[in-house]
Structures are given as C-alpha cells and as structure tokens.
C-alpha cells in the first residue's frame, strides 16, 4: 500500500505562532517555511485565523501605525484611570467620606449636648428658665400660635423683647386664658425631659441596663440588652468594665454573643454628674452599637476585618513576593516540604501575619512529622481569625491532637469548628465529633 499520506501534515497539531510572526505573514515578510507553518496552523486555530483575516482587511502599511496609536490610547486610559483614583492610586473619595463622617459626627455631638443644655434649663425653676433666651423663644412661639388675635396679644407680638415677661401681666378673655393654659402645657411637653428622666428614657429605649453601685435599673423593652457595671466615686465617675464583665447583645437572626469589654474605654468625668451620666450613656450606646455590629455577623465581620488588613498589607506586596508565594504553594503541591518551609520563613519575615503562608508552613511541618511546630502554626492561624483558613486550622489541629491522644483538646477544637460559618468545615467537624462519641 502506498503510504504517501503519512507525511501530509493533515492531522498534525501545531502551537500558535507568535503575533509578530502572524503580522509578518500578513505583511508577506515570511519565508516559505514560515508561511507553510502559519497556514497549516490557521486551518486549525480559530483565534489566529480571525486575527490574520482581520489584518488582511487592512492596508499592511497601516497596521503598525494603528497598533502604535492603540498603545498610546491604552497608556492614556491607564493614566486617566490612575488619576481618577482607580487602582493603586490614593482614593480621594475615601478621604472625602472620612471628612464628611467627621463633620456629621461633630454636628450630631453638638446637637446632642445642646439638647442636654436645654434639658438642664427646663429643669430649673420657672424664674430661671425665663432668663434663658432660647426657652423664652419657645414660650413666645407657643403663645403667638395659639392665642386668638386681640389687641393685647398683638401688643405683645409687636414687642418681642418683652415677650419673656410673665404672661400674667397681659389681660385676656377666659377663652384666651384657657387656650394659653393649653398652650403652656403643650410648651411644657415640648421641653425635653429632665436629664435623669431623659437618661432613663434613653436607657429604656436603647435597652440598656445600667448598674450603678447597688442601684439597678432595668428596662427590657426590646430584644437586645447591654449590661454595664459601674464603680462610682464622690467626685469623679470611673466606668471600668471588669475583665469578667461581658456585654451581651443580640441582633436579629443571630444568637447572643459575649464580647469582652476590658478593652473598652476607661474614663473619668470630673464635673456635672448628670452630664457625666449622659456621657456614660452615650458611651454605652456607642459600645452597644459596636457590640451589635460585631454580634450581627461575628465570623463574617472578623473575616472582613482580616481581609481588610490583609489587603492593606498586600498593597505593598511586590512582584517578587507574589512569585515567592506561588513558589511556596507549588512546593506544597509537589510535596517539597523543606523548600516550602524555607520559603515560608522568608515570606513571613516580611508578612508575619499572612494566614495562607503560615498555614502552608504548618502543613509542611505536619507532613514532615514536626507536629509541635505544626501545632504552633495552626494555633496562630486559628487565632488570627482569617476566616476559612482559621476554621480549617482548627480541624487540622484537632486531627493532630487526636493523633497525639489528646482527645479532650481535639473535642474542644472540633466543637469550635462545628460553629464555623463554612458548611463543609462545620459538617466535617460534626462527623469527627460523632466518631469520637
């Protein structure tokens, strides 16, 4: 049989030629051999064929100039993108948002303490209240709005400076007097409650249970509650959360979570007791909202914080570090553990809290029977709260403990892992626990 077809290249697979070679082919600047290899490839490769056909629609002389102008445009787009603040450049909108936030906080702060001042004025005897211009204005407004038109009242309206004087000096009909009484009583209701009541209301509305020495006031109007302990002295109030004290907060769809308050602020208020208490309430509110925020999705929150920190540090990662990281992973994949450990050590000198690399090193230690080192690394990963990696580290640690006949330690870790937000980890931990039982 004639085997003339064996050398026909019909079913020969060829790699994509370089773009430069394809362009040379289009321009007709290739030798016979190159031309043959390109044409053989074009039959099989849709991408290269499309590219060549596209260029064949252009004037060969124009190709280079078109490509050059495109490169310039790309550079311009990159520059514009960077100047807009995209990418690695400084993000101005973050700064603007921060300034705005500070401003709003300042306004709210001012508003809050102004209302306290007004509250204090409202709590004073009537004669003292009238000295306060702001309060006098309130009364005037109430009067002018509610009193029907009469000469006497018109006089008072025409003399705003005297409006602060006692209203009794004005002659009125019984109806007007009645209306005014209503107006006055309305005005009284409009005045903020005295500080203590206001504070209690605030406590109740925000569901804060405030323990001042032995006097305990409790309110439980809503689902969430914060418990604070206070130690007071005669002149200064110090609020210190004991290490044992916990803030308990519940949030929708989340079970109550204990948060240690020992790192919360310790502060002293030197002057007014009421203001001091208000400040404490405010601080408690802030702490409560912090607690609620953390309680809302504790694991997700921690992970987000970790990721934020990690991304911050990754901004400074240079290309060599990326290569090094890839090499470490490669060594782990190819079971070159000693190289992986060596390179991990190098990497961790620069980024000592990189969970991924610590976990890689732990794996390498574990695979080379250096269990104490592996335990140390896995424990670190677990403590770093870096999401799934930390939860996986718990599982790994449990496995090592089981190997070392430390069943109780393993159980504790597995129980922790069953609460993981990652279903696969939680399920695996549950399985392991069942096995132990």
């Amino acid at each position: 049989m004639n085997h003339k077809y064996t050398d026909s290249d019909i079913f020969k697979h060829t790699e994509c030629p370089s773009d430069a070679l394809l362009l040379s082919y289009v321009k007709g600047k290739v030798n016979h051999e190159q031309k043959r290899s390109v044409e053989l490839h074009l039959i099989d490769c849709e991408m290269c064929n499309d590219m060549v056909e596209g260029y064949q629609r252009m004037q060969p002389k124009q190709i280079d100039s078109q490509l050059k102008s495109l490169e310039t445009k790309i550079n311009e787009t990159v520059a514009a993108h960077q100047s807009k603040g995209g990418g690695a450049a400084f993000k101005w909108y973050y700064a603007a948002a921060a300034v705005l936030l500070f401003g709003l906080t300042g306004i709210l702060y001012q508003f809050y303490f102004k209302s306290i001042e007004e509250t204090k004025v409202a709590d004073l005897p009537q004669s003292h209240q009238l000295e306060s211009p702001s309060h006098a204005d309130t009364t005037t407004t109430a009067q002018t709005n509610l009193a029907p038109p009469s000469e006497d009242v018109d006089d008072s309206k025409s003399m705003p400076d005297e409006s602060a004087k006692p209203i009794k000096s004005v002659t009125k009909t019984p109806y007007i007097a009645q209306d005014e009484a209503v107006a006055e009583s309305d005005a009284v209701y409009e005045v903020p409650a005295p500080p203590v009541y206001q504070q209690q209301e605030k406590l109740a509305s925000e569901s804060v249970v405030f323990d001042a020495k032995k006097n305990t006031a409790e309110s439980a109007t809503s689902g969430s509650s914060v418990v604070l302990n206070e130690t007071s002295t005669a002149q200064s109030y110090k609020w210190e959360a004991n290490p044992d004290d916990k803030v308990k907060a519940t949030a929708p769809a989340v079970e109550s979570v204990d948060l240690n308050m020992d790192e919360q602020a310790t502060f002293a208020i030197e002057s007014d007791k009421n203001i001091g208490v208000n400040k404490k309430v405010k601080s408690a509110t802030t702490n409560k909202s912090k607690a609620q925020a953390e309680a809302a999705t504790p694991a997700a929150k921690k992970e987000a914080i970790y990721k934020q920190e990690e991304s911050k540090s990754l901004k400074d990662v240079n290309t060599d570090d990326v290569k090094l990281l890839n090499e470490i992973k490669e060594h782990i994949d190819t079971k070159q553990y000693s190289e992986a450990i060596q390179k991990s050590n190098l990497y961790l000198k620069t980024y000592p809290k990189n969970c991924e690399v610590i976990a890689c090193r732990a794996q390498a230690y574990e695979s080379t029977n250096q269990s104490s080192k592996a335990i140390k690394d896995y424990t670190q990963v677990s403590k770093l709260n870096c999401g799934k990696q930390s939860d996986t580290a718990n599982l790994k640690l449990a496995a090592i403990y089981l190997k070392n006949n430390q069943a109780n330690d393993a159980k504790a870790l597995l129980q922790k892992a069953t609460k993981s937000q990652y279903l696969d980890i939680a399920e695996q931990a549950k399985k392991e626990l069942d096995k132990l039982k």
Partner: protein
Amino acid sequence: MPLPEEKYLHLSDLELIQLFKLNGDAVIIGLLYKRHVSMALGVANKYLQPEDEAKDAVMQVFEQLLKTINHHKIENFKSWLYSVVKNFCLMKLRKEKNLTMVREEEGKNIFSFMEKEQLLHQEEEKMKEINLNSLETALKMLNEEQKVCIELFYLQQKSYAEVVELTGYTLNNVKSFIQNGKRNLKLKMQGAHES
C-alpha cells in the same frame, strides 16, 4: 526615567493578573493588554468595519477589562481575551442588526466549521491510532472541491494563494473547503476504523 510597567515586564500573563487582583495597579492591565493588542485589533477588524470602529471596540474592551477582570477566573489570558473581543464585536453587530449581512459577506462556513484547538489536539492523538491507509479511501469519498483543495494544500503543500490561483476559488472558499474536507476526512476515517 523608567516606565512604570517596566518592573512588571518579567511576569507572565497569569502572574500579572494575580498581581493586579492584589494591588489594583492599572499599569499592570495596560501592560497585559498591550501584549495582546495586536490579536485584539486583528479580531476586531475581522468583525467590525471601518477600521476606526474596530479600534474603538478594542479600547472599549480594555476599559471593561479594567473594571471587570477581577471577577473572572482566567487560565489562558490570550484565548480568554479572544473570546471577549469576539463576543463584544458580535454583540455590537447584533445591536446594529448587521450580523446577518456580515455572515453572508464573510462566507457561511468559516465560523461554523472552525474547530476548537483543544478538541483538535485530542483528535490528533486519536488519529495517530488510525491506520493512515484509510486516508486514501476517505479522501475519495469527499466532494470534488474539498478533495482538490485538500490534495493541493496538504499533499502538494501549496499555499493558500497558490490553491486560489490553481482552482479559481476565493480565499475564503479555499479555507472553507480545506476545513470541511479535513473534518469530513476525520469523520470518515474514524467511522471506518470503528466499523
């Protein structure tokens, strides 16, 4: 003064993507795109005319890339980019309702009978197992145009231009006959082998 992209020159496509995902430096994607812009321009030119429209498409794809590359898992940037550019152009054509026209102009078979690189590689392995004696028989079963083009291109090792000159067919037709002929050959040879 060194260009900002110079420090990235030694990195592969995938390393560049990885790094961009970490630090978001647009220079990286600029560099990556410039590596393959000739392919992108060629492909865009095939589907879009005039040339300026093709150039605009290439730039629009680049701008999209800057925004969305983080969301994609890319294993081979060049072939991924090819798909992106091609789809972008086809979408644009669809919007302009010119797709049908272009298909008619470009030749019906070019698109539909192009075969995937990977598939071809697998088939190549298969074909090695098949006795090449059946090639001659299978070749006889092809239609006249396909048979002539296959013989000229593969057996007589003529170039496209020469086949065009010898047969009088258009370049697109020649390519189409070769591609279809090759595909049919494989099918017939595999069928003969299995039977």
